[in-house]
């Protein structure tokens, strides 16, 4: 592999790692699978327990898996949340713009209607003073 190609490949891998999205997605997927498997195993495991202590051990082990998943979720949401916030703000601005555009079409019609009413009013006033 030429030095230029090596550099390019290294930059690409680095960008994926630095970006973190790929690693985070994989970690979250793995923790999700573990949490769901722990929950799925819970009914059988609890039924096999003979003492309260055994049941408590089982549920604590399951909670450990679930808490690991939720902890990872909180971290990833902090990473991706701002993108959604930014898009929501952009959409709000778009909504206002489109509404203003629709209103601007009506303005010309309203201006003419107002002028009509004013002209009729002036005519009525003229009649009143005849």
């Amino acid at each position, binding site marked *: 592999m030429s030095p230029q190609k090596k550099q390019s490949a290294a930059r690409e891998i680095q960008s994926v790692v630095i970006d973190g999205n790929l690693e985070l997605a994989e970690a979250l997927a793995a923790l999700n699978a573990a949490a769901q498997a722990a929950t799925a195993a819970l009914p059988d495991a609890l039924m096999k327990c003979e003492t309260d202590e055994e049941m408590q051990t*089982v549920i604590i082990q399951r909670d450990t898996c679930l808490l690991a998943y*939720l902890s990872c979720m909180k971290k990833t949401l902090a990473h991706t949340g701002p993108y959604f916030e930014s898009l929501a703000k952009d959409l709000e601005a778009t909504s206002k713009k489109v509404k203003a555009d629709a209103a601007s079409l009506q303005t010309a019609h309203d201006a003419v209607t107002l002028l009509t009413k004013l002209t009729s009013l002036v*005519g009525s006033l003229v009649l009143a003073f005849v």
Partner: protein
Amino acid sequence: MLTEHNIAFSRSTRIFSAGLLLGIAFLSGCASISEQNAVKLATSGKSASSSALSTIFATDSEYESAMEAEVFFHSYAGVGTPSELLDDWQQVKTELDARKAVFSRLTTVYAAFGDLASSTAPEEIMSAIDDFYTALYNYSALVTTARPLVPESTSVVVGNIASQLLTVRKGRLIRQSSVIIRQQLECLLLLLDNKLVQEEMTSFQENLRASRLNASRLLMKNDLLDPSPMLNDLAADSGFKAVSDARSIIMTSAPLKRGVDGVMAFRIQHYNAGLEQRGYTSTRQALRALIDEHKKLEKGEPVTIDELQQIVNELHSISNLLSGRNQ
């Protein structure tokens, strides 16, 4: 009253206005926006965004049922539900719910887009100008007995010009809005295509469902669930129904119990499995279809919403299935 002056004025005005109308028609461009297509697209967009909202986010009732399942597991095991666990669930839900704003605002944008596309201002202005002329004519008749200030034919010409100008303006505004909306749809699609975002959105719903379903399994294992509906389903082809004491009969027979437990476990595991992933995939498809239709609209091509409508129908059915489990 038509005088020689009025006739000459009317003729020159008509020639000028014809030229102006041609110019307006030329400036409006060859790829003119279809207002009807824009209205169709606005309606579909609104439907798609509100369906997506109810499909890819966990509802409050789904969440509450899952939390009750958590409390049930922990109480069954003789421990209190750890506050850290409940707090973490709540925190994650709150963060995800904040994303609903994107879809609810998209619905609002499409409503505004529909209002813009269906504005009748270009048509209304013609009658408004006609009314204005009538008022002006009546006024001028009051103040002078000479010729009218403005010939009668002028109002028709002016009305046509104003209507054309507004039509061109409306088309331009619709195209501009379509471009902006499409660009924001592309941003949203980019976000939803991201593997991490997809994992976040679907895994949360899947874990909530896992809690609810496995609480059902624990109830079933403790013989607290009535298997009659399942027995009725198994016997549906024969037209028969389970007897009223089916449950007590099953309890006394180990093979029957194994059979029934097996089916119930299978149902719990597989019933509507993968629904969250399907809903997410359909949402992305809906966004892609919307983007394509916006491109067609902007090019002046016909908008065909059949494919989009099918996807929206799919979203509706997934949303109904998801909400049906918590009724």
